[in-house]
């Protein structure tokens, strides 16, 4: 499929002896917002890290723009990673730099743009995420939600075709979370960015999702649109969308 930007085939992965992902397959189309959902500890973030080439799988294949990540050497992998924006769960901002310098870092390293324009780009990216006033602040002076948005501004600094976003709405107030959802929709519409988002915020899922993949205990139990998910007969999916608790809150072993 020519419009596929990233594809995962039969991915199996372990942390030590513990199997985290079991035969996970998915395909993300260019320009869509693809959500990976599931309960805590089901392997969402691990899957995302595999898709950026940060972890090595036990078996299976990941193809980004038609290329198998396992066949890339270090330099090719680094080049590929430059075309993916990653916004981490805990923002991943460098504490020793201002927020503006954090956003400017990828531009200075790989942006190939005039130095005089970098400041304007940084301002624009920070405005996009509603942080115009924070350019000269240090990350430690920001709240958790602001750090998350600054992380997104850095992730989209190089206008990547694909952005991974780990838990965008977690820790944000509803107004800010809604604003972030709208921003994601705007960026998709105006810049054609493909988003792969890990989340378990129901409101966000309903608002932004084109397609949803649900993991449970490391396995794919559902993949489809939000409508299909809402009408799914799979009990775990129903439980997730109805916000229904297990009878006892127990640690389910992976």
């Amino acid at each position, binding site marked *: 499929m020519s419009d596929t930007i990233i594809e995962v085939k039969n991915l199996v992965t372990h942390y030590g002896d513990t199997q985290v992902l079991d035969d996970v397959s998915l395909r993300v189309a260019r320009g869509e917002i693809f959500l990976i959902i599931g309960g805590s500890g089901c392997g969402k973030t691990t899957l995302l890290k595999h898709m950026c080439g940060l972890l090595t799988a036990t078996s299976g294949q990941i193809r980004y723009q038609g290329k198998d990540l396992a066949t890339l050497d270090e330099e090719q992998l680094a080049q590929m990673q430059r075309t993916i924006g990653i916004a981490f769960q805990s923002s991943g901002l460098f*504490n*020793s730099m201002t927020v503006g310098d954090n956003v400017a870092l990828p531009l200075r390293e790989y942006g190939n*743009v*005039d130095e*005089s*324009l970098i400041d*304007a*780009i940084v*301002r*624009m990216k*920070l*405005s*996009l995420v*509603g942080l*115009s*006033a924070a*350019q*000269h602040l*240090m*990350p*430690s002076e920001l709240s958790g939600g602001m750090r998350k948005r600054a992380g997104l501004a850095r992730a989209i600094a190089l*206008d990547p075709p694909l952005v991974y976003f780990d838990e965008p709405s977690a820790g944000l107030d509803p107004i800010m979370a809604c604003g972030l959802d709208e*921003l994601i929709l*705007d960026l998709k*519409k*105006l*810049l054609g960015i493909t988003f792969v988002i890990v989340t378990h915020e129901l409101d966000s899922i309903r608002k932004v999702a084109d397609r949803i993949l649900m993991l449970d205990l490391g396995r794919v139990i559902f993949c489809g649109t939000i409508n299909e998910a809402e009408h799914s007969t799979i009990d775990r999916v129903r439980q997730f969308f109805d916000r229904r608790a297990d009878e006892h809150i127990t640690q389910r072993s992976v």
Partner: protein
Amino acid sequence: MSETRIECPRTLDHETGRTLLHAVRQQKVRKGQTLILDLAPTENMDTLGGAWLVEIAGHLRKRHAKLRLEGQHEGVAEFIGIIQPSLEPFPGAKTYQAGLLERIGGTAIAQAGELGEFLSLCVDAIYWTLMAPFEGRGFRWGNFVDEVHEMGVRAIRIVCLMNFLLGLIIAMLSSAQIASFGLSIYVADLLMIGFARELAAIMTATVVSARTGAAIAAEIATMKVQEEIDALRGMGLNVAQFLVAPKMLALIVVLPCLTMLGLFSGLAGGTLWGVTVLGFQPAVWINETTNAAQMNDLMQGMLKTLFFAVAIVLIGCHNGFRVSGGSRGVGLMTTRAVVMDIFMLICVDIVFAAIFYYVLQ
């Protein structure tokens, strides 16, 4: 009020944006003028084109002129809508420069504040280490044993090696001087007195401060950054009791022991030189060394290790608690702790040297 109109290109990107800025500059708009950018011909633009618009807005702001965007089509209008805030003035970096008196006052207040925090930590730590256990208020013996293992047992090899090498160096340097008088055997006396009074204590404390002092500062600073300290306080636990007291008692116990091992290692280094290079019989060298051993010298060395131990733990904890600013702050505070530790060791040492010279000679 005059207006100037410039037509934008069909595609606004990196190259055409730069040309547009050039065209705007050539207009030499004056204060109060309005520059109208006609976006009607523009069918598409990318983020770099948007960045040039931000640059143009900044250029006009500097000239106290106004920017108006007109005629944009739907897609371009939406894009400009989301970058609109960056076309407005931004707050700049804080550039406030305090006056000399203000800086002196600020520094004095900060130093006094830090001193207060340090004294408060000292009182808390000493109470929870030395007094509270006797009042039945609890001491974390499990942690104490772990700390003894971490600070003491795991430091034995490096402490012994450093002291051994120092003994070798002192023997080497001093024998070169003393040999000309034919009194090489007195190198054994010099090593015994030097290591017992001073060298074993200071070398061991320096190794421990670089190893344990840094670890304490980094551990507590990381706990502070990750809100673990707040979590402890939130549970009503006393931080000094929970974190500081086991470390302090552990180091008070461990440092004299390590110093004693350091003393023997240093003497072993000297003996190696005396026997292999200076050619003395081992029994002769050891006999001379034991003859030079005085309880008084040994007590001078051992007594100050107790104060070194207290200083290393308190300085490590104090700097850990003062951290701010995430991972960078942890690094800075760890460095600060080690520098302060070594400076404080020398200060304590000089106080003891003065006491023994003037008072207890």
